[in-house]
């Protein structure tokens, strides 16, 4: 039973020149395997900060609170250890790794996460099939990681990694942004394929409700001003669709 538990999480970011600045101000959240949670909120509300803090980005400092995965202290783990423990973050802005091919990167990563090098023949087949599922050209495997990828290609590549690494907890930061309808359909199918295994807890971070038509969450959380200010089921997403974030932004600002 995989459970990610976030308790009273306060996070500061190191700004350029102005010292640390508090972004998250007491976030509580529990994600169990098989569940899908959506975190929605206006720009700048702290959604990416939450995902970076879970993944362990060095720029974000946890000043208070805890994150545990099946009881183990995630905050005590390095970035790579967290990933090997089963935490996966699909980045909002994946970076280029010049000269490192996708195939080399995927294999190195799978070897690290699985604890042993996957058998070559099976691995090649697995990558090929997964790329096929995501409607990615096989030639992609030989390109440099994210080098010259379009926005949509970068997101497919993130989902490809998620499908291959089979994480316990998958955090998808604005995976839907910048996708056209076709790409959104394919990417959502990838996310759903992982959900359907029942082995992964999914945290879907998004600004828009569009992706929620393809990937239905059981839980919706609204973030504003570095806090979760409202929670509900999938019906909450429908409400947000109509009324937007206006009322929450005021709440956040007052905090």
């Amino acid at each position: 039973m995989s459970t990610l538990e976030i308790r009273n999480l306060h996070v500061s970011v190191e700004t350029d020149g102005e010292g640390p600045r508090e972004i998250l101000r007491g976030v509580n959240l529990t994600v169990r395997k098989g569940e899908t949670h959506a975190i929605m909120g206006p720009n700048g509300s702290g959604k990416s900060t939450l995902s970076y803090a879970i993944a362990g980005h060095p720029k974000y400092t946890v000043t208070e609170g805890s994150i545990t995965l099946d009881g183990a202290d995630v905050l005590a783990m390095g970035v790579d250890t967290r990933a090997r423990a089963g935490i996966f973050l699909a980045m909002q802005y994946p970076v280029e790794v010049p000269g490192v091919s996708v195939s080399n990167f995927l294999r190195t990563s799978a070897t690290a996460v699985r604890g042993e090098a996957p058998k070559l023949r099976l691995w090649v087949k697995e990558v090929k099939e997964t790329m096929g599922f995501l409607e990615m050209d096989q030639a992609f495997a030989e390109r440099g990681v994210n080098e010259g990828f379009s926005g949509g290609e970068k997101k497919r590549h993130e989902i490809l990694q998620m499908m291959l690494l089979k994480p316990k907890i998958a955090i998808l930061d604005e995976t839907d942004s910048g996708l056209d309808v076709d790409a959104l359909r394919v990417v959502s199918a990838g996310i759903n394929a992982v959900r359907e295994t029942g082995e992964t807890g999914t945290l879907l971070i998004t600004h828009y409700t569009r992706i929620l038509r393809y990937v239905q969450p059981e839980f919706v959380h609204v973030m504003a001003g570095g806090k979760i200010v409202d929670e509900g089921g999938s019906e909450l997403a429908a409400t947000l669709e109509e009324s937007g974030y206006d009322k929450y932004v005021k709440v956040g600002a007052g905090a």
Partner: protein
Amino acid sequence: MAVIDATGRPPAAAAPAAPVRSRDPEAHPVPTGREEAWRFTPLRPLKPLIAGQEPDGKIDISVAAPEGVEVEFVDADDPRVGRVLTPVDRVAAFATVRAGGAVAVTVPGETELTEPIVAALRGEGGVCYSHLVVEVGPFARATVVLDHTGTAKYAGNVEVHVGHGASVTFVSLQDWDDDAVHAGAHAFSVGRDAKLRATHLTLGGHLVRINPTVDYRGPGGDAELAGLFFTDAGQHQEHRLLVTHLERNCRSRVTYKGALQGADAHSVWIGDVLIGADAVGTDTYEINRNLVLTDGARADSVPNLEILTGEVAGAGHASATGRFDDEVLFYLMARGIPAGEARRLVVRGFFGEVLDRIDVPALRDRVMAAVDAELSAVGA
């Protein structure tokens, strides 16, 4: 004809005096460190070589060559010596004089070698000099590897002539011990329709200063110069290139990549390309990229293109020095890859373009292993 340099500025009113070109050491001034050619170089370790101190050490040279290749030791006044290289500084001039002759390697015309010629140069300490001449005859194909190891205070001249229509791959590996001092004038001449691929791989040494120069002896020549250096704490590694296009329709490509780590790691890359007034149809491009892995390291990179003709096919240069990107490190680690391995991936990826060109597999593996070892030495 207008003279422009890389910046598009007109030349200084009083252009710096052309360097003295002479085999006579005393014809060259003693460098003070203020000269353009010496301003980046720490002179102290080079003192004995600048002074032309009599050799008190030894560099062991053994040449393994496939059948059909002639290897001999010739006098300094042999016509092959100085055919390609005319020294532009005291150190290079002394190298020939003090070496007392040259190792001459001759590949007869139309010989197609399938195995490389490997010259192992092992420094056994002390001040020493050598001169190596490689002549590759018309339409021949050859690969020549220079493998420098051990330690010495060493001035080594190398001249390589690529005969017309011939094709030569040249690799010089500087895999010295930490305290070695190496000044190398490496001169190449490329015959009509000939092709040269020269790669300099500098990993070790306390001070390494290599001066590769290329000239063309007929139209249609093609020279690709590549380099890789990994500069560690306290090391000075300098590559000063000069490609002189005086013939028509010749091509040159220069691609140098360096990684630096540790306090006072210092690399220098100078890329001078001169295109003469008659060199119409010249196609040239040079690039140097440096990856600074830690604080305290410094990379100097100066490309310079001087064009005296209006009719080039292409001429460009680029230079960029960047720090190791922490966001890349985070991305790779967020995929479970430990920091040390992530750094290796990034650095190998960065060097890939140059590494992939080393078509001597054993050498490529050695360089990769050396780079990996350097990276893990820092415990990153």
